[in-house]
Structures are given as C-alpha cells and as structure tokens.
C-alpha cells in the first residue's frame, strides 16, 4: 500500500488562499502611467495586411484625449524591433505587415486607464489586405502567400526527421499493419493572471521591470535585442505568477512594456492585457495533424512506426520548432519499437501565434500513439493494458529515437498499479450497470514527458543561499514559480538539508539583480535542476556553519559537530552555539553559498534528428498511466467523467501535496483539452475570444482526480525526484478517447470530444433504440 502522510501546507498556500500574495501588477506604484497596444486586425477582419500607417486624424484625436501622452509606432522602436526566443521574427510593433489578427501596430501611453481605452478606441490604421493562408498544409503549397518572405524555407519554419532502423521495410513485412489519422486543436492557457507588469527607467538608465514571466533571465536578452538595449542594463523581477503553463515563456507584454518605459521619461508604466487581449495576442498550443502507420507481430509486439506530423505555428515561430521537436521525440510513445520514422513539419500560417504549452508538443501526439495502440489491441483481441505492458519501455531499453535509457523508467509499475486498482478491476460490472439513456466506458492511457532542455542547450541552475544576520536562511529562488509549487519545494529542500524548521527558511523570488541565471520555469526541469543546485549550496552552507562554529565551541574535529534547528551542536558535550550568535561572527560574503548544477544528457546520442538546432534528444522522462471512467448521454452526447485515476512515475516524491496537485491540475487541464475547450478559428478570426465561449472545465466538470505515485528513484535527481509538471496533461486526451470508444463503439480521432462529435459517434438520432454493442 502507498502511505499517504498528512498533507503539509505549501510555503505559498496561506498568502494565496487569503489573497495577500502580491503578483506583478499588484506591486505597480499608484502613479504609474498606463500603456496599451492597438491591434487593428480583429476589428477590420484582417489577418494578413500591409500596414500603410496610422490614420493621422485618428492619431490627433487620440492625442487630444486628456491624459493621453504618446502614440508610438514601429518608427519609435529602437533596436531590431524583432522579438522571439530563438527565431527573431516577431515585431514588437508592426510597421510593415500584420500577420495575424492580434498583431499590434501602435502603443499608447496615458495617465489613466479610461484615457488609454478612449485613445485606443479612436485609433484607425490604414491596412491593405494581403492574401492569407490558414491551413498549414495549404501554406506549404506552391504559390501560397508567404508570411516571412525572407525565411529560407518559405512557410516551412522547420522540417525534421527522426529515424531509427528501417521503418519502411519493416512495415512492408509486418504481419499486422494499421493506419490512423488524428487532429488536435489550439488550446488557450487561460491562466488566472493575464500577461502584464510594470516598468521604469531608473535614474541611472536601468530598465527595471516587474513582470509575470517564466523566464526572467532570458527575457533580458530578448528585450535587449528587440529594443536595442544592453541586456545587462535590464533588471527583471518575477514575483509569483498566477499561472503560466508555458504561455509566459518568452516575451509576452515585456517588449511593449519596455518600449513604453523608454518613452515615459522615467515614470513607471503599467501594461496589463485583459482577458480578450490575452486570448487575441497570447501564445497558444499548436494545432497538429498526425498520420500514423504502425506494424506489429500477431502477438502485439511492436515492430515499426511511421508518422507524419504537421504543426501549425501561426504567424510567428516563438518556440514552434522546439515544440515540434519534443512532440516528435515522443511521437512513437513510451514503447520499444525497433524501426521508427517520424517526420515533422512546423508551418507558418496567419493564425494566432502558437508556442510553449504544458505538454510542449507531446500532449498532441499522445491521443495518436495511444489511439494506434488501442486499435492494435482491438484488432488482435488483446487486453489494452497487457498490450501496453508488453511493449512498455524499461530501464536500459533503447527508446524509439535510439536513446539508451540509463535513467529511471517506471511505466510498467504505473500500469501495474492501475491494473490492481478497483476502478480498473471492477470496470465490467460498473459498465454494465449504466442507467437509462447512458453508456458507460472505461479507458486508459500510458504517457510520458521528457524533462529538461535536451542536448545542445545546457540545462543549468545556480542556487544561492544566504545565512542572514538574524541567523536565518534566505533562499534566492531563481526559477519563477508560476503556481506549480517549486518555491515551496525549494524551502522544503533547504529546510531538510540545513536541518531547520520550515519557518526558518525565507524565499526571495527571481530577480536578475539578486539571483543567478538559472533558466526558465519550464520543461519539467525547475525543481530537478534548481533543486539539485540548491542541495549543493545548502550542503556547502551546512559544512561552512559547522566549521565556523568549531572555534566558539572549541571543537578540533568537525565530525563532532552537527547543525541542528537554530544552532550548531558539539555532539560529545551537547554544547551549542546559536545560529543567531554565529551569524554575528561572519562577514556578509562569508554568509553566502552559491552552487550550480548541470543536468546530465544522453551519451552517444543517436545519429538522427540533425535538423534540430537544440533540444534533441532527452534522457530523463516522467511516465504516467491514466484511467478514466465516463458516462455518455445517448440523447445529447454529453460526457460526464465519473472517475479519474492518475498513476505517476516522478521518481521519489519530495512533497506529496505538490506532487498530487501537479497530477490533478494536469489532468484537469487535459480534461478541458479533451472535452470542453473548443478553440474555434475562422479565417484567422478567433470565434471563442472570451471565457464565455472558450469553455474551461469548472469544478462541476472535473471529478476528484485520484493521484497515486509509482515511486522510483531517479539517482540524478534531488532526493531522487523527476519533474512531473507536464506529464499529467498528456493522459486525458487518449484516456477519454479510449473510454468513448468503449462506450460508443467508435473512437474519436479529433479533439475536443464535443457533445456534437460524441453524438455523431453514437450514430446521432434514434441511437437510443439501436442495439447496444455486445
């Protein structure tokens, strides 16, 4: 049995539950100016257009509004006016062309929010329509309108291939061959706190920003490049985020905010996207089309997999190529397959910008490879769980990309835990007891998610811990906490390593001036990489305090001393020197310990995936097995998720409460992706532009998600843990599809599984009178 200790409150629980936590915009000085972007495409119904300029009369009218200070255009942007994390292709303000309906062409500075709103409503842009393209496969055809004519590949941002063995030959000879096509939609991050922050040019010329960001250190370089500033003259502070999920990885409002500050004559400026602007201009999950062919032996042993994936990256690259890379790396599933060929194309269109999103390209592939596994199980009359268990990757295996898995792999244990659970073992009786007009179905999925940046981009963190004058400890968290609980995990790790009460550890949130560069809050790396660095820094601090206490305790052997809560103790005599006293003996420099950690990478990487600039391959993966029990209403196609179980392999569990919250939050967001979040686009226009039409699941739509741990030990992790922030979102898409297939007899191949699509699965009208599937 898995023991479940009483949950311990997270370090940030009380302040967030009581509403006292101060997010970026809560800290803006009252006298701040207001800045806001003018995005004309949506109002004019233009997703691709030449910018001829702003209508001069409208600019005069806007400037005549009392309190309106400036109307800035591309001509006012110093520097390259190009933002982007790797590909710098996105204008801060568009001076020549808008490439999607949310592109900004002007930025207004005003004394108040009403003045800003008024001015934005008065502005008019002179736009000349350009031919547009909204379908990624159309965009690759000859003669398609080009979004970035200067880009060598035309609308193809990146085409790439991962190959192992000879999939074509193996598929030719495989006893069983199955094909399938799948598609997954755009998903909106819909964090509670939309993008924004405030900024000011300080008297000594520093651009000082407090923003809602996942990557404060890297932001400096992106902003500096776009605005022509020395990145080291930019200070970014990243207080707790009200959600990120990848949507705040890279500049969102930062470049616009920096531009506003440059024109604010030293006054602080705030910039806040409202929900509509967040949906219009924010980054989304890539919509993907997937075409699969799988070959197997008659006993279900997988022989070969070939697939082609098309990612729609929208108007700009953001991390499109990298997102596709990770998706491709996972496209064959967590299975042993000797022959693999994965082709991917990431394509520019005039749709909204796609970028990083929890499950980074992987959440899109899971419904596909798991759909193929279920199709194979059905074809061969095998138990879907047994089929997965038979092919599941284990430690020491070579994965589908050719990487020898020297890291911890506990997918089989996840599946075994699921198989033993009553929600699985009682499924037949439960299914048979369906009430009138109701079909019941049970489905499962095996999923995984790589951790860290992958080869080619050092995944490093530098932790700093300070022993304060008061004899307490200050941890300089350098990786933004967007709600996932890493800051709380750091406080816990430090308390354990320093043998102190939790209350003796204080946290500083990321600040490029006070903390050391430690990478972004992303890729399931945060607690792993920074946590490892922090353990080293705390270990050094412990040894230091013991050695500094040797003199006052007159101990000539350090082994005779130990750090205890609030003091260093001489074990043989029991004498102590209180930390508060000890702190007084130490200079400031001596009260600080810094240590770094670099994530290990795959050795002898396979000779494939050469098209990827960085990030291929990964070495360490979190795994999970998910189970869903659902009811489908025959009259309406509505789906009720009755029970949900997530069994997660995240190495050793450091904090059960945070671990469960990640599994539950991931499952809830994945259920939204699978069921209710129906992002609709027509010719580049977002039809679901607010939260009354883009429907997140509510508390009444998500069941209590039962989270279990298949605890292993990742030897390279801090206390054996792996990152579990992403894997949870990958399960619901395939698990719900499997449950729907079980309930209706037909598998949906297109997310989300809306009532309308589910009713179609049931055979629509009069279905209730059809004979039920045996």
């Amino acid at each position, binding site marked *: 049995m898995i023991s479940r200790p009483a949950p311990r409150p997270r370090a940030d629980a009380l302040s967030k539950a009581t509403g006292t936590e101060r997010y970026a915009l809560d800290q803006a000085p009252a006298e701040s100016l207001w800045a806001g972007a003018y995005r004309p495409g949506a109002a004019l119904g233009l997703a691709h257009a030449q910018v001829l300029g702003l209508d001069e009369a409208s600019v005069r009218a806007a400037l005549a509004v009392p309190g309106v200070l400036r109307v800035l255009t591309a001509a006012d942007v110093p520097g390259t006016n190009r933002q982007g994390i790797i590909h710098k292709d996105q204008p801060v303000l568009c001076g020549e062309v808008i490439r999607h309906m949310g592109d900004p062409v002007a930025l207004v500075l005003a004394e108040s929010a009403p003045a800003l709103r008024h001015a934005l*409503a008065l502005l008019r842009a002179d736009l000349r329509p350009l031919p547009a393209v909204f379908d990624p496969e159309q965009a690759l055809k000859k003669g398609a309108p080009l979004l970035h004519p200067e880009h060598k590949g035309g609308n193809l941002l990146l085409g790439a291939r991962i190959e192992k063995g000879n999939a074509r030959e193996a598929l030719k000879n495989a006893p069983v061959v199955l094909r399938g096509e799948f598609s997954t939609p755009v998903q909106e991050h819909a964090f509670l706190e939309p993008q924004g922050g405030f900024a000011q040019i300080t008297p000594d010329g520093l651009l000082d920003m407090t923003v809602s960001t996942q990557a404060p250190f890297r932001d400096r370089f992106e902003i500096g490049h776009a605005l022509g500033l020395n990145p080291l003259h930019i200070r970014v502070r990243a207080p707790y985020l009200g959600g990120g999920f990848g949507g705040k990885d890279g500049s969102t409002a930062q470049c616009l905010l920096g531009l506003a500050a440059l024109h604010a004559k030293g006054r602080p400026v705030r910039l806040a996207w409202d929900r509509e602007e967040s949906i219009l201009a924010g980054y989304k999950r890539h919509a993907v089309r997937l075409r699969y062919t799988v070959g197997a032996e008659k006993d279900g042993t997988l022989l070969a997999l070939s697939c082609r994936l098309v990612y729609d990256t929208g108007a700009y690259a953001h991390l499109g190529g990298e997102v596709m890379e990770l998706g491709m790396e996972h496209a064959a599933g967590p299975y042993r397959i000797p022959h693999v060929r994965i082709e991917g194309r990431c394509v520019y269109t005039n749709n909204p910008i796609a970028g990083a999103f929890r499950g980074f390209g992987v959440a899109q592939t899971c419904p596909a490879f798991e759909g193929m596994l279920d199709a194979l199980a059905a074809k061969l009359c095998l138990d879907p769980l047994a089929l997965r268990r038979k092919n599941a990757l284990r430690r020491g295996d070579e994965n589908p990309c050719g990487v020898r898995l020297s890291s911890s792999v506990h997918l089989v244990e996840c599946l075994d835990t699921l198989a033993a659970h009553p929600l699985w073992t009682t499924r037949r009786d439960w299914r048979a007891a369906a009430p*009138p*007009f109701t079909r019941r179905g049970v489905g499962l999925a095996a999923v995984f998610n790589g951790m860290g940046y992958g080869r080619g981009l050092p995944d490093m963190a530098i932790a700093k811990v300070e022993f304060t004058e008061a004899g307490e400890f200050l941890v300089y968290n350098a990786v933004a906490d967007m709600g996932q609980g890493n800051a709380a995990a750091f406080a816990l790790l430090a308390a354990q390593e320093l043998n102190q009460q939790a209350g003796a550890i204080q946290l500083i949130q990321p600040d490029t001036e006070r903390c050391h560069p430690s990478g972004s809050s992303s890729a399931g790396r945060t607690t792993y990489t920074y946590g490892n660095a922090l353990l080293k820094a705390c270990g050094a601090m412990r040894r230091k305090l013991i050695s500094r206490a040797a003199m006052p305790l007159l101990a000539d052997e350090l082994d005779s001393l130990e750090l205890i809560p609030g003091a260093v103790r001489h074990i043989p005599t029991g004498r102590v020197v209180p930390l508060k006293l000890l702190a007084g003996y130490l200079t400031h420099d001596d009260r600080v310990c810094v240590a770094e950690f670099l994530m290990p990478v795959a050795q002898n990487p396979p000779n494939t995936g050469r098209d990827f600039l960085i990030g291929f391959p990964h070495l360490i993966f979190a795994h999970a097995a998910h189970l869903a029990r659902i009811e489908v209403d025959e*009259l*309406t*196609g*509505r789906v009720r998720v009755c029970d949900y179980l997530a069994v997660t392999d995240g190495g050793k569990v450091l904090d059960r409460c945070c671990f469960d919250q990640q599994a539950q939050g991931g499952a809830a967001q994945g259920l939204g992706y699978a069921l*209710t979040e*129906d992002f*609709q686009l027509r010719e580049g226009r977002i*039809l*679901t532009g607010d939260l*009354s*039409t883009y*429907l997140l*699941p*509510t*508390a*009444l*739509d998500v069941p209590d998600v039962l989270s279990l741990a298949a605890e292993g030990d990742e030897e390279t992790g801090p206390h054996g843990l792996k990152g579990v922030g992403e894997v949870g979102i990958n399960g619901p898409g395939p698990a719900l599809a499997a449950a729907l297939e079980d309930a209706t007899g037909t598998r949906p191949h297109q997310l989300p599984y*809306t*009532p*309308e699509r589910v*009713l179609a699965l049931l055979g*629509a*009208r*009069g279905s*209730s*009178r059809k004979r039920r599937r045996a």
Partner: protein
Amino acid sequence: MNVLFPRTRAELFQTLAEPGARVLAGGTDLLVRLRSGRETAAALVSLDKIPELRGISETGGEGLGRGLRLGATTTHTELLAHPLVRARLPMLAQALSELGSPPIRNMGTLGGNTCTASPAGDTLPPLMALGAEVELASARPHGAGTRRLPLAEFITGPGRTALAPGEVLAAVHVPLPGAGWMQHFEKVGRRNALAVAVVSLAALLRTERGGTVAEARLAWGSVGPTVWRCPEAEAVLVGRRLSLTALGEAAAVVRAHVKPMDDVRASADYRRTVAGNLLLRLVAL
C-alpha cells in the same frame, strides 16, 4: 458613471426619467454588455432598495388562480431557497439550479433574466410552459400605473420585450399547477456550470389515470429567437401514454418543425436532433 438607488416607486420613476438612465437589477448581463461597449448608459438606476419589487408572495385563493408573485429583483438564490418554489415549481427550481454559478445566482434576478430576453434565458422555458404573466409598472397614476401581460407576449424577440419607455418589470406571476401535473426541465450546455444553454426543454404534463396524457405544454430554449413552443408535438402526446414510441413520434415532429441556428456553441443540426431527443427523457416520468 452614477449608480442611483431610489427607495420608493416614486423616486424610481423620477430617476429613470433622466436621459440615458438604465435599470440595473443584478447586473450579471448588463455589466457585461456595458464593459464590452455594445451598450451604453449615462446612469444606472438600481432596483435593489425598492422593497415591493423583491420577495415572493402567494396570490389568489384556494383552487383556481392560485399562484406566486415573484418580485422582479428576487435573486435566483432566493427563489431557489423558497419552499413553495421548490415544492410546487420543480421545473423552475431545476432551471434556477443550473443557471450560471453560485455567485451569478446570488446577484442575478428573475426580472433580469426575463428582461434580458435571451433565447437561452434559463428561467424562460419553464415560465412559458407554466403560463407566467408579467406585471409591469410605470409612472402613470395609480391603477393605470400597472398592467399585466402574458410572458409569451412580453418577450417579442431576442433581447426585445414589450416594455414601454419608462416602464419597469415589477413581478412575474406564476400559476401553481394543481395535482396531476408533472414537471420536467433539462438544460444541455457545454459544461456543468456557467454554461449558456445549447438546447433546453421545459415540459409540463397532466396525465390521467393509467398515465394517459391529457394536456402537454412543451417549451424549448436556445432553438429559436425566443422560447419555442411546438403545439404539433404536444398534440402527438395527448391521449397517449409516455411510451418511447409516442415520444419518438413527437420528437420527429419537433425535428421537422424546429428551425434552430448555428453558432459557436453548436450547429443547427445538433440542436435539431437534441431538441427532439430531449423528449425521450420523459419516458422516465
């Protein structure tokens, strides 16, 4: 923007006479429309402090004409908590329990839901099936200052009502169905809370001994510009028991007559299918 809080009927009509003044009840619809800029107001006149517009009272004597007067500013939460609403108007209670979310139900009012006159207004199909009437108040001298209209005549189109300028909805009068009436309401939304109805059905049926339908009143939401009735389907059911066969026939009649719209929430086809399908649920009554 000014928000005014008149305390009497006289003050109310005085403040409403100001140019650009608009009536504010719970604000759950109006504030959204004002924020989006689709509508404007020079001042908001809140009905919140006028006691006679709020609360639930019994009207009529024993027997015929017995009903409830539901004050226009009574919140959905208050209606839901009322024992007579729960016991005698379960179809309305069901609709109220699925309307918005707890915070919306705490603010939103029955009068607001009625005057918004949305095709998807959750309380409207049950009120229509129940034969509700509205009580309208205006500044005209006593007696002439109040008129009553059937709800079906009050709502004239999506977002449109028969409210005359300067007139305010004071209450909704709902007759209480006697013994022998069965009530049913179902809302189909895209999620379980904070959902706009894609289709809804309110059914009020009187059966005789043996389960034969003597009278049927069916009202659908979200399948037309206003609440939609289908006398042809009602006629199919009268004189028959609520068997799957009879209900299936009525459902086919519904699908043949209903003319729903496509929108971001559902296609016309889906609405048509489901508008019929929902009748099959009555087999369980």
